[in-house]
């Protein structure tokens, strides 16, 4: 699932308001239709709030969703 990557520009500027922390890449588990993937995604190191930027949601992530739906 290394295809899911977040360009740095999409993350730039966002920080966790709750914990006042910068986003850092962390291993995150994504699940869709009984498939599980480990992906590096920007998240708050404290509360683990994960950021899925627009480009990722509508781009690669959407493609993978479609692919899994047709399996």
């Amino acid at each position, binding site marked *: 699932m290394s295809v899911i990557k977040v360009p740095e520009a999409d993350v*730039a*500027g*966002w*920080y*966790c*308001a*709750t914990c006042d922390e910068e*986003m850092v890449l962390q291993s*995150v*588990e*994504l*699940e*869709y*239709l009984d498939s*599980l993937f480990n992906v590096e*995604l920007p*998240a708050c190191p404290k*509360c*683990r*709030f*994960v*950021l*899925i930027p*627009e480009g990722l*949601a*509508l781009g690669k*992530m*959407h493609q*993978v*969703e*479609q*692919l899994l*739906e*047709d*399996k």
Partner: protein
Amino acid sequence: MEQSELRQWERQCVQEEVPPCTAACPLHVDARTFCSLMAQRRWDKAWQILAKTMPLPGVLARFCDGPCKGTCVRKDAGGAIEMEFLERFCAENAKPVAPPRPLPSRGKTVAVLGGGMTGLCATWELVRRGFDVTLYCSSLGGSLLDYSGDILPEGVLEREIESLRTMGATIEAGVDILLVQLDLLLDEKDAVFVDSDAVSTDLFPIGMLDEMTLGTQRAGLFASRSGEVSFILQAATGRRAANSIERYTQGVSMVTGRELEGPYETRLFTSLEKIESVSPVLDKAYSELTAQDEAKRCLQCECMECVKGCEYLRHFKYYPKVYVRQIYNNDSIVMGTRQANTMINSCMLCGQCEIICPEDFSMADVCLEARRGMVAQGKMPPSAHEFALRDMAFANGAQSALARHAPGADISEYVFFPGCQLTASDPEGVLAAYDDLCRRLGSVGLMLHCCGIPAEWSGQQALMEESMEVLREKWQALGGPKIIVACPTCLKTLREGLPDAAIVSHWAILRALGLPAGAKVQDISLAINDPCAARNDVLLREDVRSLLDSLHIDVKEPEYSGEKTPCCGYGGLLSTANPALGEAVARARGEAVEEDYVTYCVMCRDMLAKIGKRAVHLYDLLYPGNDDPGVRPAPGYSVRRENRVYLKERLLRELWCEDGANAKQPYEDIGVEFTEQARSAMEDRRILKSDVQKVLLQANTSGCHLVNDKTGHKLASFRPVVVTYWVEYEDRGTEFIVHNTWCHRMHIKGAQQ
């Protein structure tokens, strides 16, 4: 789908049937491809097409008398293609090709007696198939030798005889046939063929001859019937003899499956509509230019009737025979990607192809069955129809649905059923229509409900039945009144689902009652857009035209209209399953006429309005408001829901004098404004205002959100059920300004809600 069903469907689509010329040709020459290449001046390639099928092509191409011309579709649009002259031109101008390479030897020997066209062609066909052939004849060519000069230039026959030798035939010319002993030959060889036009059958009494096999009463002896003058038919006889000898030496049936050996009728349909009549090029000694012009007249026969009328069928690049195969394969996949899901879910199930197809092929039947199969196997992509089914649930939910007698009444002779999309798009029109019906018919009950068609279209049969059962109960609770239906899809669906109910269209009622008081009578021209649900309802279409006539509207019929009308792109849930194609379909429909459209399905109106085509619903003319209805924008998804809720609340408040307000959900108190960008993102991504409000409520309650240090915008996410929504917003204290929103279906495990 069972394999036998696949075969049946495949048989029903005639696109891959051979063209009439090939079917009528005794040798089944591919005249269509030949003409296509000739039209491109690719003489050498065209010659290869002839040489592939014809024995002794250099000779035969010069003697073809065009037996295809009687069936040529072009004959009714100027005149049949002058095939024999094109062949002759090609024979004279193309580069000769090497004779075909024979198949490996079968170890079977055949004697051919007689060197006329029949014998030569039988020899050609047999050596080609790997037989060891000896041709015995007194002279080579038989009656061909009567021709020379222009018709058969010197050297042509000799070259083809040389080809026969190259292919491996042994040619014993100059033999005194009288000395040939048939009995000895029959003992020696596996089979013997007698060309009866070149060898006197007095010498070789062959007795009774079987028409189909050319077999005689002696095993292994085959012969042609004498007296055939057409060289092409002689060649075809030579091929038939070769086929028989092949079967005989293999020990297989001599008769089964030989129906298509000679000329036959094809099932291919080719329309002459829109084909201009063009006369044949009369100068028979063709030059490159005139040969090309003549070849260009070939219609390149094919059917494609359904594809011409349907954007969907065109979009996937093929035709139903290929599609049904793809759907069958899709259905059979155990592991791997199901390539045809999108194609299956893109059919509008509108039935246009079935009407247009000369063999009644119905893609709707194939695709709906495939969808039901996918649902049953748990293989339906969740994103395909979920949004539409959520909308259906909303239309049937407490906020939107209603079933009542008229205010103050406890029985209903009639009940008005406007349909959930009309209420979503034009609540004012529905209010006016209901008011009009009550005034003129007395007490008319009201049912606001979805007819259940999204469930049917998505392949969810159980949900469809369940939904229809709820409708039945509500209708029965009203005492089973006659149902007045405004939406053509609801009309069709309710007639199928409630066969015991008396159901009448609103348009039939209005035709009988006369125009409502405020109807806008005006002398204008409008193109009528029949919705696909009216395809098989000729009375409905007549009622609407009669109303338009009363309104003094000059009605223009588009090319595809009435029973051939296409879908607007909404049907079959295309616009949810494949929004881009849905839009393309609407665009094609919009571009089909110059005039503004008038229609009587609000989804057609809204689909057309969405792509910028001026279109009015019949309600806009019968119950006009103040604005120009042609430019009324199609309401977005959120507004459609709000309109349903608004309509119910207003009806309850004004007609039934009740407080119609539903108990509010907490998120509804979230005040929210949208930028243009956010609004357009919401429509494209099918995100509702309520989805956004839920995210904002969740962010407010949990405090979980991100902040952008450059823009100051906040970002929060929430997953109410199966979709995670993201909202980028500004918090202005009393309300939120939403700048952007997006969503995904993939679930982030163990992180935020």
